[in-house]
């Protein structure tokens, strides 16, 4: 299951979706809005996506996880819109028979999501300025 949403991410429901008596291990990753980045204070983040392509890329990653690891269930949700400090921006849940696979598949999904899924975040700094975030934590010069 992959999904974009403008609502709060319900990580409990997401985790329940992947639990199974066939799986002995569940790994859940949550990305949350962090206050401090390189000494600067964020008050909020705005996320936007190219939705059709973002969903297509998330589907590809989902399928690739099943192809590479013995995954029982996997779910990926990315939130869009205006997020406050501490809000969950992305959630990845994976279940596998064994934990090594669950950790590897979960790590793969969030790492690749950040590389290929067309979603962008804009920082809202505490001085009132906004700035598009560059991957690897850098910022695109205004």
């Amino acid at each position, binding site marked *: 299951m992959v999904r974009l949403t403008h609502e709060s991410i319900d990580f409990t429901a997401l985790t329940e979706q992947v639990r199974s008596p066939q799986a002995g291990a569940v790994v859940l990753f949550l*990305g949350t809005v962090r206050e401090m980045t390189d000494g600067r204070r964020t008050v909020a983040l705005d*996320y*936007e*996506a*190219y939705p*059709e*392509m*973002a969903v*297509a*890329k998330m589907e590809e990653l989902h399928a690739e996880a099943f192809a590479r690891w013995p995954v029982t269930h996997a779910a990926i949700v*990315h939130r869009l819109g205006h997020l406050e400090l501490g809000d969950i*921006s*992305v959630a990845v849940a994976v279940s596998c028979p064994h934990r090594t696979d669950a950790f590897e598949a979960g790590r793969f999904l*969030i790492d690749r*999501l*950040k*590389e*290929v*899924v*067309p*979603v*962008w*975040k*804009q920082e809202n700094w505490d001085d009132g300025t906004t700035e*598009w*975030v*560059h*991957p690897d934590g850098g910022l*695109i*010069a205004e």
Partner: protein
Amino acid sequence: MRISVRLFARARDLAGADRLDVQLSEPATVGQLKEQMHEQCPPLGSLLPQLLVAVGTDYATDETPLDETADVACFPPVSGG
């Protein structure tokens, strides 16, 4: 042919619009599209070296051919998660 390019994030902000209509002589590639976009919309220049182009839901290279039916989008490196 005329291609209506969807713009996202900083590419949209620089262009001041969420689409840019580009005229190209056929056959055309993504590389030619990017040159034409820069000519029509000079503010995109600062982003040009990093600008990504998608055709359909796949990332394209400068060599990817374009046709009139293609869904084309331009955007900076992704920063989700």
